[in-house]
């Protein structure tokens, strides 16, 4: 038999390619593999785990376990045991429909590679929203969720003395982790009030384990005499070339700043205001999006068990709406089963039993999302000279001017100002800009979609794209008409 041993040509046809090895993608891969499908699981992180269960890096020889590290180890063990073809440090940068299935283009070890698959399960998770405040670009300010990557992967605190400011349960987790890792928390600042939390008791009662864990974080912080400022936010960051202190202010019920401010010294600040589904990969594969404030903003349109209107594309996890990790696991299993079903497996019964568990988990997750989602007043934290687009150093004033002269969409603001054309691809400015346009034009946010995502999903070195190039292979076209 003659085998073609080319490089890119060799790509064999995968049954189910899962993008994202978090709770959702990891479980999707496991479910599909149980049904005998040839599964490949890709993630840009080195090891499976996703954001919540991010694995330790190789500098850690041993360390006390946490609920996150244990759950992550369990998922990683299952993936190993099921002999799933997991490829870490692999970034997806483009997805292309082919006549049969999909080409997925990845970057790994500085080289590009093409994978071909019959179906896709996209479980790309979320990234965070940070309302721009004066000084938030200073070194020493970290995303609140992002900081947890430092805890889980590197087991390091973000500084010597940290202020933790943000919405939802994450502030308390972050503060407690900083203490655990030997850092000092100068203050915990959260727009939520104790009453906001009391209102969520019915949802919390559904997950007593998690509720207790949260309560313990708070008790610990109080015993440690760490000030917790409820109904407040950090409103500006001071310091020359790095965080030296932060101003804190009370917020009203709408989360607009009001009344006294005071200052606290710190060398670092963790700041975050909820999560945004990462929808770019689904969009590149042709899935349409809708606005759902209860799910964290713009989400891909999905049907039951992660199916979409694009044949062969299934979605799951926080990338379809911020329902939290417990829901993501179940959603992943459902989507993995749907994909297997699409390829001939019989999974209807199994899915039916999972669906109600998923819905229950989602209800709890969405209650936490509701606590984390910014209220409209929070936008007032952004001042005229606050940088909104970090990549291009564009202030709110510049954006306001552009909107005033008629740019009425994120795309128009992007074209006119470059807001969203920076290396992050707009991931850290488009949401704030869309909200600003909506407010300014008095239109619902649902009318201001983010600008269309452009490949590559992550920056790709030219050297990777041009490898193997032979000048003589250039397909010289018919010369253009003279």
């Amino acid at each position, binding site marked *: 038999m003659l085998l073609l041993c080319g490089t890119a040509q060799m790509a064999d046809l995968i049954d189910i390619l899962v993008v994202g090895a978090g709770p959702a993608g990891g479980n999707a891969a496991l479910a599909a593999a149980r049904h005998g499908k040839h599964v490949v699981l890709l993630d840009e992180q080195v090891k499976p785990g996703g954001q919540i269960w991010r694995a330790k890096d190789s500098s850690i020889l041993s360390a006390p376990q946490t609920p996150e590290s244990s759950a992550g180890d369990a998922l990683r063990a299952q993936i190993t045991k099921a002999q799933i073809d997991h490829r870490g440090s692999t970034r997806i940068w*483009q997805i*292309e*429909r082919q006549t049969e299935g999909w*080409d997925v*283009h990845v970057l790994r070890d500085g080289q*590009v590679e*093409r994978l071909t698959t019959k179906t896709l399960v996209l479980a790309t998770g979320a990234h965070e929203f940070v309302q721009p405040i004066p000084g938030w670009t200073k070194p020493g300010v970290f995303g609140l969720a992002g900081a947890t990557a430092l805890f889980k992967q590197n087991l390091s605190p973000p500084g010597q003395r940290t202020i933790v400011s943000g919405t939802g349960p994450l502030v308390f987790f972050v503060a407690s982790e900083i203490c655990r890792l030997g850092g000092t928390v100068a203050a915990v600042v959260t727009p939520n009030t104790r009453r906001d939390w009391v209102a969520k008791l019915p949802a919390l009662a559904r997950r007593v384990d998690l509720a207790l864990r949260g309560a313990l974080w708070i008790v610990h912080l109080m015993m440690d005499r760490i000030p917790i400022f409820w109904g407040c936010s950090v409103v500006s960051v001071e310091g020359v070339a790095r965080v030296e202190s932060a101003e804190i202010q009370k917020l009203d019920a709408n989360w607009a700043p009001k009344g006294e401010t005071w200052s606290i010294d710190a060398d670092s600040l963790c700041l975050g205001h909820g999560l945004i589904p990462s929808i770019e990969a689904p969009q*590149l594969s*042709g899935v349409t999006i809708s606005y759902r404030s209860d799910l964290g903003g713009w989400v891909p349109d999905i049907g039951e068990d992660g199916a979409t209107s694009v044949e062969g594309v299934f979605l799951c996890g926080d990338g379809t709406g911020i329902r939290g990790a417990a829901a993501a696991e179940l959603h992943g299993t459902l989507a993995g089963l749907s994909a297997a079903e699409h390829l001939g497996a019989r999974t209807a019964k199994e899915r039916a039993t999972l669906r109600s568990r998923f819905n229950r988990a989602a209800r709890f997750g969405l209650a936490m999302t509701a606590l984390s989602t910014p209220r409209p007043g929070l936008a007032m934290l952004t001042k005229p000279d606050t940088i909104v687009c970090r990549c291009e150093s564009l202030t709110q004033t510049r954006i306001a001017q*552009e909107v005033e*002269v*008629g*740019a*009425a*969409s994120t*795309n*128009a603001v*992007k*074209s*006119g100002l*470059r807001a969203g*054309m*920076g*290396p992050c*691809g707009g991931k850290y400015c488009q949401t704030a800009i869309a909200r600003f346009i909506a407010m300014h034009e008095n239109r619902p946010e649902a009318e201001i979609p983010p600008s*269309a995502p*452009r*490949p*590559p999903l992550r*920056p*790709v*070195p*030219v*050297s990777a*794209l*041009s490898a193997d*190039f032979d*000048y003589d*292979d*250039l*397909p*010289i*076209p018919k*010369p*253009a*008409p*003279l």
Partner: protein
Amino acid sequence: MTARYDIAVIGGGIMGCATALRMAEGGMRATVLDQGDLGQGASGVNAGTLSLQIKRVKLMPYALKGHHEWKAMGDAVGFRKTGGYTLAFTERESELLHERQTLKAEAGAPIEFVSNNHIRNAEPNLTQKVISASYCPEDGYANSSLTGQYYRGRLRDQGIPYRERCPVTAIAQDGAGFALDTPQGEITASRILMATGAWLKPTAAMLDVDLPVNARINTVSVTERLKPLTSTVIGHATGLLTMKQKTNGTVLIGGGWQGRGTPQEGRGQVTAGSLQPNLALAQFALPALENARIIRSWTGFEANVPDFYPLVGALPGVEGAFVLGCVRGGYTIGPYISKLMGDFILDREPELPLFDPGRNFKED
């Protein structure tokens, strides 16, 4: 319902907007309608190259006039006159380059052939593999992203109402002109100009006219900011590469590589199969790109008809309807040819001949 306009322009690209401005100067009450944002089509996503070296011989007089328009628009559109080189790396390309650029020079473009020493001094970061090159001092670029912003401002200053997110979905002829269906209500006008770029075919079909318009889907990419590497517009004898480093340090790379999709589907896709050789060729020409990262690639639809000449004139068979589009190098030529279109509609004698949309399209 709003009062009847003298003319409704369908399509707010460079052609539609620039023609509306000309007609308003001539005293007409015009309005511009776009299905999305002004300049969201080819006019806002193209590579922005203003190069005489890649213009068709017969269009050279229009391109030369176009360059004057861009110069006048200046900073507001990011205009830079940098001069430009077209490179040949093989004997065959060299022949092609000489043959084609000689004809273009005869048509009036100030193109000269330069020595290898000259190009090494002028662009020291280019590969040493150049075997011959042509140079045109008139060449440069503008920032096509600014098209929407620029024309929004110009239309507003001239008091020309425009509507965005306003697709025209049907056109009816009434006794006094045309009634256009849009989600923002019916709009009536005595005349209409179709300037819908790659969407001209479905637009004309609304009046049962068949225009043989096809679309190419061109790919453009941009790097992150880099230290200064090149200061002119770089092209390749085959046309497979255009490249320029913007003042902010990013390098914009095009060359007509084809993506996938159709204007009807509304979305074009970048294909890795086109992107890779496009960027490899860029790195071949400018080796320092090796260390650069691509942060964004996109596509746009460029319309053409079988003879690759423009459509500028009356829509065949429909009194009061006009069409403008399918201009090769339409970003460069657009601001000028739109003036000719405006003059024609204003019943003035255009300075240069138009291109009859009712002609017999034979492949050139």
